């Protein structure tokens, strides 16, 4: 932008014609040519001068303003917007607008979790083994069943579950095998 400070609009357009602008200066120059008839006349004149200097000849044709006006009208009549092909934008790690809220919530949750674990450890150590056990976990001793002659060790919890839901074992209502349960059908020793 500092380059802009030293250039007036016409000088900016001269630099634009030479491909010496980029970024904001480029955008400003394009807007100037598009909106200011004087700037537009300079844009055309600079290129006409350049052509004469390079080729020794001038191109004479339809006045630019009239040509451009008709072209814009035709494009509008056809109502065919320019097919856009935009570059694929790779997602960046820009933080969301409410990012700080989530960070705060995560911090509070972490502190609460550490506090709870610490409290339990401290309380467990202080209370010692003297406190009564309120609930007794069911026996988790593995059950050994016969499966095709070979002993199969299974979780007794799975056996209880299958015993309570015998109707799910074996096959589906359509008669097809039912995936996992096909291989985990409850088979009580009494059967």
């Amino acid at each position, binding site marked *: 932008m500092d380059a802009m400070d030293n250039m007036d609009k016409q000088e900016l357009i001269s630099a634009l014609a030479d491909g010496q602008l980029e970024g904001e200066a480029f955008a400003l120059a394009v807007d100037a040519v598009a*909106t200011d008839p004087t700037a537009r006349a300079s844009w055309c004149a600079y290129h006409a001068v350049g052509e*004469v200097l390079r080729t020794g*000849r001038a191109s004479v044709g339809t006045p630019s303003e009239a040509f451009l006006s008709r072209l814009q009208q035709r494009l509008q009549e056809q109502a065919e917007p320019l097919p856009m092909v935009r570059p694929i934008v790779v997602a960046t790690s820009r933080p969301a607008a409410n990012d700080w809220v989530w960070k705060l919530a995560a911090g509070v949750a972490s502190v609460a979790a550490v506090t709870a674990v610490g409290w339990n450890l401290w309380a467990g150590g202080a209370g010692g083994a003297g406190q009564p056990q309120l609930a007794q976990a069911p026996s988790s001793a593995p059950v050994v069943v016969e499966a095709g002659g070979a002993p199969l060790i299974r979780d007794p919890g799975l056996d209880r579950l299958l015993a309570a839901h015998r109707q799910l074992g074996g096959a589906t209502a359509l008669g097809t095998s039912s995936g996992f349960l096909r291989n985990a059908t409850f088979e009580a020793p009494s059967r």
Partner: protein
Amino acid sequence: MNKTPPAAPPASSGDTDLMLVERTVAGDQKAFGLLVMKYQRRIERLIGRMVRDTNLIEDIAQETFIRAYRALPQFRGEAQFYTWLYRIAVNTAKKALVDLKRDPVVSESSLRGGNDDDEETSGMENELTSAETPETVLAAKEIAATVNSAMEALPEELRQAVTLREIEGLSYEEIAEVMNCPIGTVRSRIFRAREAISAKVKPLLENQSGKRW
């Protein structure tokens, strides 16, 4: 037939074209207007070498820019924008010529020369073409003479700067090195030279209403 178009502008000017194309494709249609104004007369002159009927020249040029506008997303910058536009113009003019031949009411005088498609761009840059009128030739010569006399009237440092830029195609950095001055000075000198010449040329360019190839 698709020969390289003559007198390509300096290289960094092509960078501007590519940036204008990218800007247009990104949705800024104003940028396309700059490309149209930059190349419209050259495209009309090119078409004027192919089509005899001066009334058709602007229509074909318009169609050329409409086709170019639609195809802009396919322009990848491998070639210069004018080279790409030149080919579109040639193809559009060829199609117009074919359509004219199919039209039974069109007069033979609307068509230029024979049927050979290779004729139209084969080094006719300096020939008087059938679409040119004495009036347009005079106007073009007047503009060229005005530019040349304005160049001669420039102070040496301005003339050297604009010559190195427009004729030799040097970048601002290279000109600064040659002229042993800062880049800002180069930019200013080129601008002042252009302004001095344009002041003489603008009235001629604006006074071309009705003068067509």
